[in-house]
């Protein structure tokens, strides 16, 4: 289900769909979209890590998740071939993607490097 309305300052992980992902990318200056699917074990390992990062970095980095199985348009648009895959957008532009599960500290380091 799509977000009812995009919150101003989310401290939890937003759930995005093909319908509202573009709007979210345009709305937030820095957003990380965790592309996942039910069939993917490593994605489930990453879920609590992303939730923790969303809380700890509220006001600085917005985190969202998108189920690629239910939202194939977005997966196609960004050429996703592997999940978990975190798409990183800065000022509406894709600045990188992070493929595979990794520890929280390392993931945050990779995200911060893209934030500049």
């Amino acid at each position, binding site marked *: 289900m799509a977000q009812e309305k995009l919150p101003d300052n989310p401290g939890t992980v937003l759930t995005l769909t093909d319908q509202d992902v573009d709007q979210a990318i345009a709305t937030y200056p820095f957003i990380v979209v965790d592309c996942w*699917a039910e*069939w*993917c*074990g*490593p*994605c*489930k*390992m*990453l879920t609590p*890590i992303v939730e923790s990062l969303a809380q700890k970095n509220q006001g600085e980095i917005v985190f969202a998740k998108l189920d690629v*199985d239910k939202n194939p348009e977005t*997966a196609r648009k960004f*050429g*996703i*071939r*592997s*999940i*978990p*895959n975190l798409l990183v957008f800065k000022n509406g532009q894709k600045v990188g*993607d992070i*493929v*595979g*599960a*990794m*520890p*929280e*500290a*390392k993931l945050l380091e990779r995200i911060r490097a893209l934030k500049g």
Partner: protein
Amino acid sequence: MHDVIIIGGGPAGLTAGIYAARASMKALLVRSAFNPSLITTTDLIENYPGFPDGIGGFELVELFTRQALRFGLEITDDDTSAVSRHDEGGHACWKVQGSSGAHTALSVIVATGTEYAHLGVPGEAEFTGRGVSYCATCDGPFYRGGRVVVVGGGDTAVQEALYLTNFAASVTIVHRRDRLRATAVLQERAKANEKISFAWNAVVEEITGDDAVRAVRLQDVRDPAAKRTLEADGVFIFTGTIPNTGMLKGVADLDNSGYITVDSHMQTSAPGIFACGDCTRKLLRQVVTACGDGATAAFAAYEYVSGLKGTSYGGYTP
């Protein structure tokens, strides 16, 4: 201080955890938060007894975890970097160092498993996540109608090739020999599957593409000058595994490939450190053998700790 620290959250570690918890040991299982047991990426396990219709790897590990928690096993997510000798209040023990702190215990059970080996060919690292994959259950659905190459000839390669036929239009198994190593039932299924074809006596020399994988360059092992190009949208690599045993280097004996050498009691060369499952030197790396090893390791660790405490029931000779 714990009686035992189990490192690894796969079938071997969780079985050791079930046995240790049921023996009322003060046990802690440390599992990697980001490097899950390889079996969790297998879509279907058909040779683990008790599941006549097969079971998914992730689901099976969840069941093991639930069973261990039911008996009170403490589980924490952390990445273990080192195991070292330690002295606590005049008692020799082991220290297990993680990224978010250290734990001490009288005994340690190492069940850290393996990870998939890389081919080490040009294009492999560059296209990882853009056509090169080590997880068919994660990435197979992105190749609906596509042409897929599977590299390897063992159980994993053939099982995953069969799984990929659910999505791909064609699957080519590239193997360096002229026959498969995989178990007979898998070989028969692969040969009967019209989507699967074979490139025998071939190794991948290079993976090429632009924004994603487009082809693999194959070399004939019998005639290295003979090369050909196979068009492909995806390359899945299952050519073998390497043990996650770096933390035991210099602490316990490893064989030349890095596998931990253990005796029939799962005891390593370091007193009080036991090892079980895929990370040990053994003939057959399967869920069922990992579970058996895990149970043995937990019992041996229990007897070892009881011996230290002077509470042994007896009958065990290390």
